[in-house]
């Protein structure tokens, strides 16, 4: 705590002087208006200061404080140093609710954005907690579920935004978490929520301390764990929803602030709550003042949320080593025996027969000018090669994503592992965006190379990290998530720039099979076959690795080399597939899950079943994307996400 006495006032002074510096750039101190502010008697510059820069500085403090408090509360309740409104999908849920309301039912916003955002955040957190409860609120699983829910919400929000392009600009600026203000109302609302929340949180400090012994321990001391958990989380949800409604997505402040509080030596829950609130306020204030100064100096106008996302990714990685002490290994265990098919070969045979049948059906049938029906024989020569190319590419991409998901799930012994979580797709998006912005008129090859290069870079960063951290597989997933968060922050900044080229990136993010060239489709198919062959050869490794490094090493498996090879294989497969279908599809998560629920448990059966299922799913998605809105092609990746994700969540939550 001694460090606090030094750093606290220093940081406060720095934040204040930075804001003053930015404000004085706007208007010299001598010309500042006097309280009370009366717009009637003020110059334009004075109005801009009193109703723009001043409330903005206040909002930065309040938003940071609210997020810091929300993060500290969630971390105390879930006993998870990685919990925060971003990693648990709260902000994305609130964002989705607001986007949906803006586009579909603007009337709902008549009562203000708050209630809508609250509903979205509550729904998202409910989903995450329901998923997490199935695995005993194990920290890694909670975080992964939260990030998945966040990805899903973002995908749906993107789909909605794409469908109504005219609203795009204002939405993406909001998404980026811009703190710009026109009056004091935002600050007033935030303060009205923050102060009671802080009081409630401090009242809960002692019960929360008991809860840090774990649910059973707390119950034994006479504290009902569930109501307390829900109450504390409700406060956190209200805080993050208010922030989302007022300023949009401001990522990772809730993660950083409690971490700073801990570094400063906050030991008890009460200290942590207070210090995290303070640290969050100062952190965001510093960030926002720096951005204001940057803009005043003629630099780009960036939303603060995008910048905090940039800080958040590396921070997440830096925090990962802390998890070693806090993850009780037994709670990460599965809670039900997996079903086991008596004749796995027959299941595989059925899948293998379904694939050509479905392919033939979607090749020949579909929706044309005359409605649903078989392809007109006269048009076959023109359409069949096009359809065949798109179909082949989709099948191969589906198989690749599913295969890489299956490998990752075996590697990490975690059924929530997926290539989408590995950050590779995030890297691919960044590569694609850089190609669009850096090259004057990039062709298909340049774009593919850009995406592939981005994926490879993300993969290299991940492997480097994984090797250093002795490859604890659960942490690998979180490092991947951090890379993904980093790339989405950069993308948000690109979008917020309002550049028209952002449209091209957004279009790619949602994926399309129609762009596939015959060469690309052939390459993807070859890759899929290679992955299948490699997976079959690695079957025994895939059986041994889930047992952990100690057992695998004792059996003579070269653990590090094998893990690295599998990660590289899975990453390359994901990167190649995401060039076609865009960064999010959930096929890599869904297909292995379906394979498991079909009773395919032995690694080779599991991998083959997952790849077949993935190809089937993606084939279906391609068919739907092509036919539903004929003659327009719907985005393939989004279609796959939208049909698959709800089913996946239902499946994960089902009790057996």
């Amino acid at each position, binding site marked *: 705590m001694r460090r606090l006495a030094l750093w606290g006032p220093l940081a406060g002074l720095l934040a204040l002087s930075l804001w003053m510096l930015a404000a004085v750039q706007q208007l010299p101190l001598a010309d500042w208006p006097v309280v009370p502010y009366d717009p009637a008697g003020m110059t334009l510059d004075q109005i801009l200061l009193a109703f723009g820069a001043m409330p903005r500085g206040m909002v930065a403090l309040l938003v940071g404080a609210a997020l810091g408090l929300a993060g500290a509360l969630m971390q105390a309740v879930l006993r998870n140093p990685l919990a925060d409104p971003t990693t648990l999908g709260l902000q994305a849920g609130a964002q989705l609710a607001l986007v949906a309301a803006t586009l579909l039912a603007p009337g709902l916003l008549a009562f203000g954005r708050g209630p809508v955002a609250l509903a979205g955040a509550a729904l998202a957190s409910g989903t995450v907690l329901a998923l997490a409860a199935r695995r005993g609120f194990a920290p890694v699983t909670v975080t992964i579920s939260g990030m998945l829910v966040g990805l899903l919400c973002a995908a749906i929000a993107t789909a909605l935004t794409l469908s109504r392009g005219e609203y795009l600009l204002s939405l993406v600026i909001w998404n980026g978490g811009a703190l710009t203000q026109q009056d004091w109302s935002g600050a007033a609302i935030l303060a009205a929520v923050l102060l009671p929340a802080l009081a409630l949180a401090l009242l809960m400090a002692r019960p929360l301390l008991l809860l840090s012994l774990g649910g059973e321990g707390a119950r034994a001391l006479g504290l009902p764990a569930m109501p307390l958990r829900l109450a504390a989380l409700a406060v956190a949800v209200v805080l993050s929803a208010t922030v989302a409604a007022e300023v949009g997505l401001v990522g990772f402040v809730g993660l950083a602030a409690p971490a700073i509080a801990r570094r400063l030596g906050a030991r008890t829950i009460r200290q942590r709550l207070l210090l995290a609130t303070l640290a969050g306020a100062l952190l965001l204030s510093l960030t926002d003042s720096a951005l204001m100064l940057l803009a005043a100096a003629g630099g780009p106008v960036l939303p603060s949320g995008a910048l905090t996302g940039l800080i958040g990714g590396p921070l997440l990685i830096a925090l990962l080593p802390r998890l070693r002490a806090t993850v009780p290994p*037994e709670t990460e265990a599965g809670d039900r025996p997996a079903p086991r098919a008596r004749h796995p070969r027959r299941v595989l045979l059925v899948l293998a027969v379904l694939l050509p049948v479905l392919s033939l059906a979607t090749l020949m049938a579909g929706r044309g000018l005359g409605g649903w029906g078989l392809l007109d024989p006269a048009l076959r020569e023109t359409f069949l090669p096009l359809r065949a190319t798109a179909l082949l590419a989709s099948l191969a991409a589906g198989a690749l994503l599913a295969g890489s998901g299956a490998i990752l799930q075996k590697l990490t*012994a975690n059924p929530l592992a997926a290539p989408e979580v590995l950050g590779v797709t995030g890297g691919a998006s960044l590569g694609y965006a850089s190609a669009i912005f850096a090259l004057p008129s990039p062709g298909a090859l340049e774009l593919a190379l850009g995406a592939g290069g981005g994926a490879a870079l993300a993969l290299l960063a991940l492997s480097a990290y994984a090797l250093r951290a002795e490859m604890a597989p659960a942490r690998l997933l979180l490092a991947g998530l951090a890379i993904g968060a980093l790339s989405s922050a950069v993308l948000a900044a690109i979008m917020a720039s309002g550049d028209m080229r952002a449209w091209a990136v957004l279009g790619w993010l949602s994926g399309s099979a129609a762009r596939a060239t015959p060469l690309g489709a052939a390459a993807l198919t070859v890759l899929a076959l290679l992955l299948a062959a490699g997976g079959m050869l690695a079957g025994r490794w895939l059986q041994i690795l889930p047992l952990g490094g100690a057992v695998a090493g004792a059996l003579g498996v070269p653990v590090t080399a094998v893990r690295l090879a599998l990660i590289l294989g899975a990453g390359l497969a994901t990167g190649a597939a995401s060039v076609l279908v865009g960064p999010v599809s959930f096929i890599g998560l869904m297909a292995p899950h379906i394979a498991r629920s079909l009773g395919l448990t032995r690694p080779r059966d599991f991998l083959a079943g997952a790849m077949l299922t993935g190809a089937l799913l993606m084939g279906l998605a391609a068919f739907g994307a092509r036919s539903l809105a004929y003659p327009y092609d719907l985005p393939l990746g989004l279609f796959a996400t939208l049909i698959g994700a709800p089913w996946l969540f239902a499946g994960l939550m089902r009790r057996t």
Partner: protein
Amino acid sequence: MSLFSLQDIRFDVPGRRLIDGLSLEIAAGQVTALIGRNGSGKSTLLKLITGQHVPTSGQILFEGSPLSDWPRRDLARALAYLPQVTPPTEGMQLDELVQLGRYPWRGALGRMRAQDHARVGEALRLCGVETLRHRLVDTLSGGERQRGWIAMMIAQDARTLLLDEPISALDVAHQVEVLGLVRRMCRERGLSAVIVLHDVNMAARFCDHVVALGEGRCLLDAPVDALMTPEALARIYGVEMSVGASAHPFALPL
């Protein structure tokens, strides 16, 4: 030649020295108990002699050659290890688990031959889990699961078994069953075993030799009879104990 020969081993983790200048010979063909208080370095020592940890200084010889010179596969053929907490085995049948013991011999791609299946069957039979071979490992009881894992070690055909607290979560009947099994394997098949144990009475009953550690140093290295004296026990555990005898010696805290 001794099984393991440790020469002035030190092992440090940031801020702490877990093993402090330990020199030790562990003989082949007998059951050696590794005992000591919590945090005395027992499990660390076991991880050092399996090669999972590399000593900060000093050298470990296994069957006469330095542990670090052993090719991984050859080491796995000679040395089998049971972790303190056996990992969950999602969707795996017991016979599939035991078959994993053949990995050091067949590698990632080699076909399982008739001889391998015979080894697996024999291991299942020796450990008395033949009837459970088609059950999912995760649905077995604690004792059955532990015997299943030991069957995997037997199928591995290793000459040396290393077990880290194999009985800590078992009731007394299962404890006797598991330790009896290990002892029988050593007697009948000429194997060696090193077992980390917490229960001095179980150590006295089932082991031939005892190595006691305290703060990373060796406190006792003697035949197991030497353990069952009030003086030795007080030195190891810091607790006054009385030693009695019926069919076998036993010790109780005063």
